[in-house]
């Protein structure tokens, strides 16, 4: 099936099987491998991207469902060498270790702050319920998001 999707501001066209997941298309056809796959059950959030500005698990969306939509992945955040404030906050607060959950975590965190610009620590913890990390114990992730909110 033919699809046209705006990915990180650029119009991208694809010809996909109906069953192709959005995450597969983004990774394998567009080569945007920043978005990762961590589970089979929509549990881990490693595949989180923005669809029309909101966080979505791209493993639970068909590529054909994104036809005509605007998708932003981790690769679309920085402006040249200038990191997005959330990326910078993760850097400054050691909000990542192995890096595997990081793209999804950053995308989820940006969406969280769009909906709740001044969250409490509890808001952040609950707001990230759909993103799993095995390295950081979430401590510095939460700190990063709160720091980004303070800017």
């Amino acid at each position: 099936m033919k699809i046209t999707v705006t990915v990180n501001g650029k119009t991208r066209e694809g010809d996909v099987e109906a069953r192709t997941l959005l995450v597969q298309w983004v990774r394998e056809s567009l080569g945007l491998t920043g978005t990762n796959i961590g589970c089979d059950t929509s549990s881990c959030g490693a595949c989180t991207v923005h669809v029309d500005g909101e966080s979505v698990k791209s493993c639970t969306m068909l590529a054909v469902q994104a036809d005509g939509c605007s998708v932003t992945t981790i690769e679309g955040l920085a402006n040249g060498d200038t990191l997005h404030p959330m990326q910078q906050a993760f850097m400054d607060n050691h909000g990542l270790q192995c890096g595997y959950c990081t793209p999804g975590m950053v995308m989820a965190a940006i969406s969280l702050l769009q909906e709740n610009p001044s969250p409490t620590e509890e808001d952040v913890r609950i707001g990230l319920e759909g993103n799993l990390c095995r390295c950081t114990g979430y401590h510095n992730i939460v700190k990063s998001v709160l720091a980004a909110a303070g800017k």
Partner: protein
Amino acid sequence: MGGSILGNRVLRKEDPKFLTVGGTYVDDLLDEPLLDGALHVTYVRSTVAHGVINSIDTSDALAMPGVRAVFTGADFGLEPVPSNFNPMVTRTLLAMDKVRYVGEPIAAIVSETREQGEDAAETVIVDYDILEAVVDMEAAMATSTLIYDSAPNNVVFDTLVLGMPDNTGEAFLAGCEVVARGKFLNQRVAPCPLEVRGAAVAWAADGRLHQWLSTQHAQGAHGPIAAMNGVDQAQVRVRTPDVGGGFGAKIGIYPEELLLGPISKRVGTPLRWRETRSESMMALGHGRAQVQHVAIGGKRDGTVTHYQLWAIQDSGAWVDMGAILAPFMTRPMASGVYAIPNIECRTTSVVTNTTPIVAYRGAGRPEATAAIERAMDLFAREIGMDPAEVRRKNLIPKFMEPHTTAVGQTYDVGDYETALDKTLTTADYAGWRAKQAERRARGDARQLGIGVSVYVEITGGVGSGEEAEVEVLPNGKAVVYTGTSPHGQGHVTAWAMLASEQTGIPIADIDLVWGDTDLTPVGSGTMGSRSLQQGGNAVFVVAGQLVEKAKSVAARLLEANENDIVLDKDAGAFHVAGTPALSKTWADIASAEGGISAKDNIAVPGPTFPFGAHVAVVEVDTETGKVRHIAHVACDDAGTVLNPMLLEGQIHGGVAQGAAQALLEEVRYDSDGNPITSNLADYAFISAAELPSVTVVHMETPTPRNSIGAKGIGESGTIGSTPALQSAVVDAVSHLGVSHIDMPTTPEKVWAAIQSAR
């Protein structure tokens, strides 16, 4: 001179990549020319826990779209291979005669796309004669059903065969005024690195095999891959891309990874393999899985004089590293931080029809700590003493010379009472006790529980040193080669700090190479919290050697005496003492030499013994049994701290995994050996919403066993937090008559414990 960079909070050099385009994990190697035209491998796995294979019919799969080949063990003439840990036990890498756990690989499908492989895997028909599934480790020793004919009673390792004494039973405790006993389950958990296993292989035109592997130890995989492919090690290059976590489960090499070379040879194309999470939950090794029979005895004044432990270790369906964790990691640490004059400890490892057990963050030490800490709580309860006080009374006094426990293990240095005191003070232990008393007096539905643990563990037990090479290029930039293998720990930054400290080259100009058997053929990888004390130490010492080597070049270039040459680390240049105007930079020296390097294998005299104390506070809803982890204070003394930011990150992550085991996570099987937690919806992988922020208490007692003074920090947080959490949960309901709840302390278990105590 700006002073030492060591000990500073230096941000990670590796982060911008991870944050902007993501790491390059093995599944991200889309641009690798050697992998052009790679096909995909999908493994067909056993759906039966224990059974005899009558036949494997792959004909339908072969006819499926995009399928290029399907292989069984017979197609490769696979021979049984012995376990590294008990050579009497053998298996074939693809199950041929028998399957021993759900998830065991049986056949390999090669297809053009991953989807086609998944489709075809569903069409392979395996006919089994079902055998009794042996799931419970104590039942395994009693049943007549043998998983391996060569392992009577399903026992694959016992400390008795090492000549270690058996436990003497009741007689051992005969003289004790007070005895408390318990049977504890240290349950099976899944390591769950967020990146599952993956690999890629290609036979290059020159006949060499290239294998990319998501691993903690490429050098360890090198020999087995070469042997599997019947080629010399020089004909194999193993590379480690970015690795999305390991936690011990990616130390060893697995059948699915070993088979890729031969399959690639047979089909004549490069191959990629990535398991799904559902596969990973069944086929990546699990951790822990011990049943512990514990008895503790002593005097009414609180002095513990006797401790007896029989640890039964589940090895799963294979004899992997898990089989030896109980004898070689749990047993040596049985005494914990306590001066207990009489200790008996036997361990027995058994096979069951479950996923094999491997190392998992802590690997044997969390089990030792949980056993003694739970025992201390039971003892405290028996004599009516505060658990923190019982601990203090029995701590080994501060020692700066090696100390040997009754079980024969020698520790390097220790100051346990200071760790306990600092932690209790920071946590406001007395304040929490007062709040707890108020809630108890009021009879609130939500009660507070406070758990204390004091622990010592063993790190750097793997490897006796490490290799490092430091090279300065003609442009003045440096490359460090290390035998360790980061997968989140921050070596790129930390090793650059160490090299920069010696050479004065800015950390921005120092790159790190690891996990590539062509470039770093010697190395023991990253495991057992060994990296800094062995690998980092080697970088530090070798960088110092390089400075000395560079001084002799500088002396020649400056026409001076080598002994008069000094390195100005701020300028990154050498000059004759007293005449800084005339100097030679690293670039000058490296250019004159066409590059300059030093390389050495730096030995360490032995492992180190980090220690610490944790206080966990929980709120337990006594009506429902639900536990909320509301505060956590961790003091983890890892010796000299290189980068406090990285240190704290290790503690935070360790605490979360420890809390996960104490409160939530458990791999479970039904009575037929079917896994019922084989995805992340069913397995309760802990999230941010179930955890509090962690208060870290700093304490540094340097070890004399390396030039940095560093001990391991990767696993301490897990080891200290688990018993503190479990103890806190029990403490919250102890006034209702509860003395023990097995982990994970799920709501129903807590509720049931309250009901049965009433």
